[in-house]
């Protein structure tokens, strides 16, 4: 028993220590700073109570980026998962090119978010414009210059990047479905759609839980793609929450207020993701 305890702490200890140093302690400091008027340099802080938190509600940019982020998250979670699941269905059908396709679909995920943002910025601004000029399609011109095109630009980028990743999760889940079940259904006369709907979808539920969680938290916390693709343009209308917090700290030099925003942000992300996991867990079926 004693030895067991020792092994337990030997394995957990280092991780726990690292976790406390890089997550818990900064978190406590962060909460502390959110009640001060810190400017990021001085050690002499003034305690300002909850005024930083009250400030948030009158900050219309913060409210706007909250709305933008929420809208973005809803659409991107749906788009990424639908695309990822469809790709998974496509590459598990036993096609000759399956392995090649899997690699290709997964590839965007290997490129860093910042670089992807710049690549897509080039595509949206230059390639789209040249294409538009050539074909006379005016809707291809001036991408990322309006809120709408920025919104869809970000969505296209994120879907392109993340659907390959969730595809891998779905592939694993689909391959875990016993062949007999599908065959039996086929013999009973179920068509492809019926098999997907009544057998595959319920059985890959656990994969949905994890993919939804990943895409939800990823989309909500998005920063690097947002920075490199739109930078919040035009007129800060595509500025997502993480970026709004960064700007509050490093452009407006209001570190206390930025910390308050970060605390609220943490709570919101927590509520969103935990309730999602709770809800989707409830519907999972065990075999």
């Amino acid at each position, binding site marked *: 028993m004693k030895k067991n305890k020792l092994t337990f702490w030997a394995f957990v200890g280092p991780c726990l220590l690292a976790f406390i140093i890089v997550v818990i302690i900064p978190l406590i400091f962060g909460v502390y700073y959110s009640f001060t008027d810190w400017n990021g340099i001085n050690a002499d802080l003034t305690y300002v109570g909850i005024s930083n938190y009250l400030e948030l509600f009158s900050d219309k940019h913060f409210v706007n980026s909250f709305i933008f982020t929420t809208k973005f998250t809803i659409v991107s979670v749906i788009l990424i998962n639908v695309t990822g699941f469809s790709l998974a269905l496509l590459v598990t059908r036993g096609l000759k090119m399956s392995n090649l396709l899997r690699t290709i679909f997964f590839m965007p995920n290997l490129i860093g978010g910042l670089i992807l943002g710049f690549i897509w910025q080039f595509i949206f601004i230059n390639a789209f414009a040249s294409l538009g000029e050539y074909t006379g399609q005016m809707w291809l011109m001036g991408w990322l210059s309006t809120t709408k095109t920025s919104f869809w630009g970000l969505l296209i980028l994120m879907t392109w990047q993340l659907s390959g990743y969730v595809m891998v999760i779905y592939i694993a889940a689909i391959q875990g479905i016993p062949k007999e079940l599908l065959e039996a259904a086929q013999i009973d006369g179920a068509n492809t759609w019926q098999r997907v709907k009544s057998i595959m979808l319920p059985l890959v539920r656990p994969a949905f839980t994890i993919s939804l969680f990943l895409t939800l938290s990823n989309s909500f916390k998005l920063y690097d793609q947002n920075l490199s693709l739109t930078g919040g343009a*035009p007129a800060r209308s595509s500025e997502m929450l993480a970026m709004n917090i960064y700007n509050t700290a490093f452009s407006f030099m209001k570190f206390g207020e930025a910390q308050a925003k970060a605390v609220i942000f943490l709570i919101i992300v927590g509520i969103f993701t935990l309730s999602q996991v709770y809800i989707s867990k409830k519907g999972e079926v065990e075999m």
Partner: protein
Amino acid sequence: MKTKYLLVMSLVFVFSLSMLVSAVEVDIFQFKVETKDVLEKAAELYMEKNPDVRLNIQTVGGGDDYGAALRSRFASGNEPVIFNVGGPQDIDDWMDYLEDLSSEPWVDLAYKGVLDGVTVDGKIYGLPFNQEGYGFIYNKTIFQEAGIDPEVITSYDALVAALDKLEDQKGKLGLKAPIAFPAKEKWVTGLHLSNVAFSQEFGDVLTAYKADEVEFTYGEELKLLVDLQADYGYKPAGTKASLNAVDYSTQVDELFSLGQVAVIQQGNWVYASIASMDEELAVNIGILPLPLKGVVEDSIPVGVPMYWAVNKNRKAAEKEAAKDFLNWLYTSDKGKEMIINEFKFIPALSGYEGLKPSDPLAEDILEYSEAEKTISWVFMGYPSGWGEQILGANLQAYLAGDISWNELEENCKEEWSDVRK
């Protein structure tokens, strides 16, 4: 044989150890990426002459990123000896760390006004990097082909006439538009362009920094300059909203360098990138004034982008070495020669007579300076983030047609007084 070898090695070891111990380490944390290599070269030269000093240079790119990186350097306890500050706001923020440089030899050499932003209660806390200027950079060859004499463009109306001429001959000259207006770059619009109006409203950077409110005294005139660049600007989708998609590299590296537009609002820092695209074009460019109609029409804004500062809390020996290096760089003969020919700086100090800047934009700026046709930079005195994130962002909304000019002024006034209240 072997003992001899060992003896030599240990001597070398002891010698290098003593070098390390006696050397004064000076960490330099600076923002100017463009001159990183030359600065390192200058540091090498200085270390050859002063073997007891070791200069370690670290560079982090401009804008917000430098401020963020500098803060984390200080927060981590690894404080640099030499660092950069931008203007009154930085001076205020970093006051606890700034060494008083008032008794340095270069102070008396500084041109009038260049130290205003770093002077508090008569004490001077920063050495100006250099001077930079901006205005409407134009393509001389295109102007000649269009039959426009740049000499006469010393007023708003003359500029409009010239742009009209370019617009009319667009096809013949192979232009997409007369101007490229990068509304995506909020520093070009919110800081540089707006400076033309606010330098007249406030007069100098310290007044701007202390102002509780902004009046937009010359708001109408500023609107004229925005509309002018928007009307004659290259619009990717034909709408004014699409100006928000034009960025710096589209403006400078693409449209202007390829001769697809004839005029851009930029400064002497673009010379290197134009020269790397087209050397012949790079020698055939000049700067036209940035005219604020009816107020000041024949001048360009010239100012100091950043200052060198010395960290007060470091050891005396380190501070001495730091000051000596800065002095050497800006006042010794070798240093001066490097400042002009390799850094390609326009000096903010006198005493550089006989050394001529090598690029046409720097030459033009010097000419404006000598004729005293310059206006000051006040954007360092705006509230933090106001110029780009408030005014620049509102200008994008104005161009997109989401808000009117009046709403823009109201929004910006409100945010300014919110911060300064």
